[in-house]
């Protein structure tokens, strides 16, 4: 684990945001809004929680992270780069022919990416199987899955949720990036979402609700998760799509839009990273 103070981690989140926007602008990678809402969640995981070693990415006793909302791949790649898995400059190969940085993480993704993603709602089931297997084998790994709220539309999420609770998989932590938007609209207008915390509780999970941009709340929730002995844990993180960039916040156009060069300059100014 690599502890880092909230202040410096908040600064790092700004750098990650700017890199995301620059990479998006230069490589025409969409889904910025989806990436920006999860920045603090991944920062807390990768710098304060996960037992990982970028120099030994396949160490057997590592904790596993799955980005189930695979369209936010750019965020995962950026976090892995800043965490030391590969140089940040490599990110600018995103989407280029032959590059490991596919728009959704594939089998040729760089070290540190544990699962392929793209088709939604595949990770929770796989991680449930992994968490169960760790129990069978007497291993102490922990398993963290980040999902979007739109993704909860998929029925397989709830199949896995019921199974994981039935097996008391306390080594499994689901995190919902609840940014209240999905591809084409407000998530609550498409399917009935709230009370989301109660929903997961009813499915047998230990539910925690946090502000998904508050690093200390996220960290506390991750700590609380480790104290639970008989249930899987879900952290419902209230977030803002496009968080951290004033003109992107809560504007669903940034699910697909690519920023212009001028907009990236503005973003750098906003983040005080010029």
């Amino acid at each position: 684990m690599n502890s880092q103070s909230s202040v410096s981690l908040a600064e790092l989140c700004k750098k990650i945001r700017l890199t995301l926007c620059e990479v998006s602008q230069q490589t025409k990678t969409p889904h910025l809004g989806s990436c920006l809402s999860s920045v603090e969640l991944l920062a807390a995981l990768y710098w304060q929680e996960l037992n990982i070693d970028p120099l030994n990415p396949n160490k057997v006793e590592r904790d596993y992270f799955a980005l189930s909302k695979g369209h936010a791949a750019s965020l995962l790649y950026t976090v892995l780069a800043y965490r030391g898995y590969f140089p940040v400059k490599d990110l600018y190969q995103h989407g280029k022919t032959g590059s490991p940085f596919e728009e959704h993480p594939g089998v040729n993704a760089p070290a540190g990416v544990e699962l392929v993603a793209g088709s939604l709602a595949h990770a929770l089931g796989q991680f449930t199987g992994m968490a169960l297997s760790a129990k069978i084998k007497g291993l102490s790994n922990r398993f963290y899955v980040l999902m979007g709220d739109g993704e909860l539309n998929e029925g397989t999420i709830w199949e896995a949720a019921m199974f994981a609770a039935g097996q008391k998989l306390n080594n499994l932590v689901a995190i919902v990036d609840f940014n209240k938007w999905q591809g084409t609209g407000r998530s609550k207008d498409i399917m009935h979402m709230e009370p989301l915390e109660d929903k997961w509780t009813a499915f047998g999970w230990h539910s925690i609700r946090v502000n998904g941009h508050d690093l200390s709340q996220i960290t506390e929730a991750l700590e609380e998760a480790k104290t639970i002995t008989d249930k899987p844990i879900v952290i419902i993180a209230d977030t803002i799509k496009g968080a951290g960039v004033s003109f992107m916040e809560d504007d669903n156009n940034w699910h697909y839009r690519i920023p212009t060069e001028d907009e990236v300059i503005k973003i750098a100014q906003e983040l005080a990273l010029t």
Partner: protein
Amino acid sequence: MRNAFAKCLLTLAIQDDDITLFYADIGNRLFNPLKEVAPERTINAGIAEANMASMAAGAAKMGLTPFIYTITPFTTARNFEQIKIDIAYQNLPVNIVGTGSGLSYANLGPTHHSFEDIALMRSLPNMVVLAPADSQELTALMPLVAKDKRPCYLRIGKKNEPVVHQETPTLVIGEAYVIQPGEKIAVLSTGTIFPVAQALVEQLNLQGINAELVSFHTIKPLDEKYLHAAQQKFERIITIEEHNVSGGFGSAVLEFYNEHQLAMPIHRFGIPDHFIDQVGSQADARKIAGLTVESILESLTKVLP
């Protein structure tokens, strides 16, 4: 056949701590002996086949050797995308076992029929597709499947299928098994429809047409060596399967000869492209599908000398 599966799995699970069964709430007492030996590795995944496939992929990632088991349509069609992405694309050694394949559950209606599963599974890169003719072939294949590191689909029957082999044969994945050599025609069968192929060969021989009888327990990878040799040796090939005549084993054979630009008359027998929606037994359903010796012989009369 499902009893043979449970028995083989038990033997393997005793020998190997990584063998793990996920089943979708079927089997009743079938897996009780396994539960006694390895309760933590005998997992009822619930009536949630898509999640079962994903979980098995996860188990394989953690080094286990998972088998997933339920009635064929529910573990091939219902969870197809989980098999495609989580298992086949990630190239994980998950063994997908479909029981009651084809028309085994004829009397349960089209929800429980499966005659699209071979087409689905063989269309997936990395996937091995097996359809043993009887419990003995299944018994021969199970240890090979457990050791094989490729994703594998194992299409099996239900119970009380006729015995083809008096003893467990020695099989190799990807190699067709010639049961009775012949000279003029090759009858290639896959899966539990085999007794129909066997009876057909008997009839052909009675008519003075020397026919070879082959169990193609492996549909993918297809035994190309056999098919190349067959092209030199036989005047025509007959394929028989309890599967849609399009997209299955016969299609694979047809594609092989087409891809290699080899001339070979091929007569495919399978289920025509319509649902079997009339109540009846497996024998009734086979009659409707034209998968009887009489029906096949009648069709062949038009082309055979």
